C-alpha cells in the first residue's frame, strides 16, 4: 500500500516570547531581537499514513498533535524535516474560517471553495449539493453575519467536505450542530472511508478515535511515543501516560492513582444488574473501586450526562454528610435512588473520587457507564419528571 501522508523527521519550534517586541522602538531599545525561548512543539517525528486508512492523532493538551495537523495542512511550516501528501488535502480546522460576515452565504460558498482550491466551475457543479447538505436553503442569500453559529458551521462543513479531498484532516470539529447534522457528518465520513480516502483525526475523545480509526499515533511533549493499530496506541496512552488500566470501562480524564474507579453497576429493585431502567423506578448505582494507597475519607461523586452531552444532574457523598472509610483493596459505594426521575433516553455516568477537601480529583472517569431510561407507568416530557400524581379536585 502506498502512503498518503509521509511525515519525515518533522520538527516544529515555537518561540515563546518573554517580552514581545511588536514595535520597532521596543526592539531597538532592548537590543536587536526580542528575548524568547524555543519550545519544541514537535521534535523529530516520523510516521506514515497509508492510503485509504483513518488515522488518529492522540495526546494530551499541548502535546503537539494539533501542530502536527496544521503542518499537514501546510498552515504551519516545519522547521526541520518534511511532510509529503498525495492528492488534494482539505482541512476541517475551523469551519467557515474564510467566511466574510457581510457577504451572503452564496458568495461565501464560492469564496471559501476557492480558498480550498476549487475552480468556479467545480463549485457551480457542487453548489446544490453543498447547500442541500448544509440544510439552509432559505438563508443562502442572506449575509452570514445573520446566521446562527450552528448555521455558520454547517455551511462551513458542507463546503469543506464537498471539496473532494484525497486526504481529509479533522480537528475535533465534529461536535457541532444538532444530532441530525452530526449524524449527517458521521455518514459523510463513513462514506469517505468506504470510498478509500485517507482521513486524519485529532481528538481528545479516545472512544471516537477507537471507533473511527484504523491506526493512531500518540504524541507526547512533541515526541512520537507510539504509532500502530488504534486500539494498541490507545491502550498505551491509557496505561503509560494516564496510568489507568485500559481494561476498566470508560475513559479516564484525570487520575493520581491512590484509588481507581473500576466501574459502575445499576441494580434494580429485584436486585439484578440491568442497564435499562423504567422512569420512576428505584435503582441503585453501585460504584466499584480499588484502593491502592490509603486515603482519608474520600468523596464519591457522580453525574449524569444526556446523549446530547448536557449535564442532567450531579451529586456527591459529602453533600449528604457521608464520611466514607476505605481500606486497601476492592470495595464499593452505593447511591440509592428511590425514584429515577429523568426522561426516557440514554445517559452517561461520570464517576469521580475526590480527596476530602473536594479540590483534587483522585480519579475521574467520564463515560464510565451508559444506561437507558424507558417510559413505564410514568410518562413525562422535557428532560425530567416531577414524579407527581394528578388528582381530581373536590
Amino acid at each position, binding site marked *: 500500500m502506498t502512503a498518503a501522508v509521509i511525515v519525515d523527521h518533522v520538527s516544529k519550534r*515555537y*518561540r515563546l516570547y518573554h517580552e514581545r*517586541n*511588536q*514595535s*520597532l*522602538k521596543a*526592539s531597538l531599545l532592548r537590543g536587536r531581537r526580542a528575548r524568547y525561548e524555543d519550545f519544541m512543539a514537535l521534535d523529530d517525528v516520523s510516521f506514515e499514513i497509508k492510503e485509504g486508512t483513518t488515522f488518529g492523532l492522540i495526546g494530551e493538551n499541548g502535546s503537539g498533535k494539533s501542530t502536527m495537523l*496544521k503542518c499537514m*495542512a*501546510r*498552515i*504551519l*511550516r516545519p522547521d526541520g524535516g518534511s511532510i509529503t501528501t498525495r492528492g488534494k488535502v482539505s*482541512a476541517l*480546522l*475551523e469551519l467557515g*474560517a*474564510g467566511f*466574510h460576515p*457581510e*457577504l451572503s452565504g452564496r*458568495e461565501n460558498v*464560492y*469564496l471559501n471553495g*476557492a*480558498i*480550498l*482550491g*476549487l*475552480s*468556479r466551475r467545480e463549485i457551480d457543479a457542487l453548489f446544490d449539493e453543498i447547500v442541500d447538505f448544509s440544510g439552509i436553503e432559505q438563508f443562502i442569500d442572506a*449575509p452570514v453575519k445573520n446566521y446562527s453559529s450552528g448555521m455558520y458551521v454547517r455551511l462551513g462543513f458542507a463546503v469543506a467536505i464537498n471539496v473532494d479531498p484525497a486526504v481529509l484532516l479533522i480537528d475535533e470539529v465534529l461536535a457541532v450542530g444538532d444530532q441530525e447534522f452530526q449524524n449527517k457528518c458521521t455518514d459523510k465520513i463513513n462514506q469517505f472511508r468506504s470510498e478509500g480516502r485517507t482521513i486524519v483525526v485529532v481528538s481528545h475523545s479516545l472512544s471516537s478515535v477507537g471507533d473511527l480509526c484504523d491506526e493512531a499515533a500518540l504524541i507526547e511533549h512533541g515526541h512520537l511515543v507510539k504509532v500502530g493499530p488504534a486500539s494498541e496506541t490507545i491502550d498505551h496512552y491509557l496505561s503509560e501516560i494516564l496510568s489507568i488500566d485500559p481494561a476498566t470501562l470508560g475513559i479516564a480524564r484525570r487520575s493520581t492513582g491512590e484509588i481507581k474507579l473500576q466501574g459502575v453497576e445499576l441494580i434494580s429493585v429485584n436486585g439484578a444488574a440491568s442497564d435499562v431502567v423504567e422512569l420512576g423506578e428505584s435503582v441503585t448505582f453501585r460504584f466499584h473501586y480499588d484502593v491502592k494507597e490509603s486515603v482519608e475519607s474520600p468523596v464519591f461523586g457522580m453525574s449524569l450526562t444526556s446523549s446530547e452531552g448536557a449535564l442532567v444532574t450531579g451529586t456527591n457523598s459529602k453533600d449528604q454528610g457521608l464520611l466514607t472509610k476505605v481500606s486497601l483493596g476492592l470495595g464499593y459505594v452505593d447511591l440509592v435512588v428511590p425514584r429515577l426521575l429523568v426522561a426516557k433516553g440514554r445517559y452517561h455516568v461520570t464517576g469521580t473520587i475526590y480527596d476530602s477537601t473536594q479540590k483534587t480529583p483522585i480519579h475521574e472517569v467520564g463515560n464510565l457507564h451508559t444506561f437507558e431510561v424507558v417510559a413505564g407507568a410514568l410518562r413525562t416530557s422535557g428532560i425530567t419528571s416531577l414524579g407527581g400524581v394528578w388528582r381530581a379536585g373536590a
Partner: protein
Amino acid sequence: MNQLREYYERRELLSNLVLRELRSRYKRSALGWTWSLLNPLSSVLIYWVVFGVFLKVKAPIGDPSGQGNFVLFLLCALIPWNFFSNGVTQSIESLVVNAGLIRKVYFPRELLVASTIGGLLVTFLIELGVVITVLLIAGNMVLPWLPIVVLLVILQTLLVLGIGLLLSGANVYFRDVRHFVNLLMPMLFYSTPVVYPISYVPVNWQVAGRSIPLRSIYEMNPLVQLVSAYRALLYDLTFPSIGSLAYIAVWSIGLVLVGQFVFNRLDHRLAEEV
C-alpha cells in the same frame, strides 16, 4: 518562476478574493460605489482651491495639447497617486486584517496582498476611465496613447505589489511598519509633482555657498517619473521618454523580486506570528 505559476494556478482564488474585497467595501453604505468617486472628487476640490486658487499654482501649457486647466493637470497625477498611496497602505495591513484566515486555512498568502491591490486597481481603472472621459470632453484626444497608459498601469501595479509584499510581512512582525509608512506618505506626496508642476523644483539649490543639484536628486524618485509619465500621456499628449519608462520598469520589477524574496522569508512563521 515558481511564484508566477502559483499565482496562475490560484487565479480563481485571486479573483474571488478581489471580488470579496470589492463586494464588502461599500456594503451597508447608502451611497455605495459612489464613494469611490466622491473621495477623489473631494481631494481634487481641496487641492484645486488651495493650490490653484489660493497659492496660484499655474498649470504649464500642455505641449502639444495646449491644455492649461489646473484641475485636469491635477487629475492626471492625483488619480495614479491615490492608487499608489491606498495600495501601499492597505496592502501592508492585508495580512494582519486577515489573520483569522491565515491561521486556519492554507493558501498562498501573497494572494491576500495581491487581492487587496487588485480591488484598488479596479477602482483606479474606473476613476481613470472617468478622467479620460473628462479629458476627451475637454478636447484632449488621449485615445491613441491608451496602450502606453495600460503599460504604465501594469508597471505601477507591480511597483505597488512589490512594496506591499516587502512591507506586509514585516508589518506582521513589527506593527509599527504601518505607522512609519503613514508618516512617510505625505512626505512622498509632496516630493512628487502632483499639486505643482516639476518646473517649480529648482535645478540647483544653494546651501551654505554650495550648489546642490536638487532637480536631479528629485527626479531619482520613481514616483516622480511615474506621475510625469502619466501626465505626459494624458495631459500633454506626448510620449514619455523611453529612459523614464525603463527606469520605472526597473524599479517595479526589482521591487517585485525583492518583495517576493522577503515575503518568502517571512512567510515561514506567518501563521504563528500574525
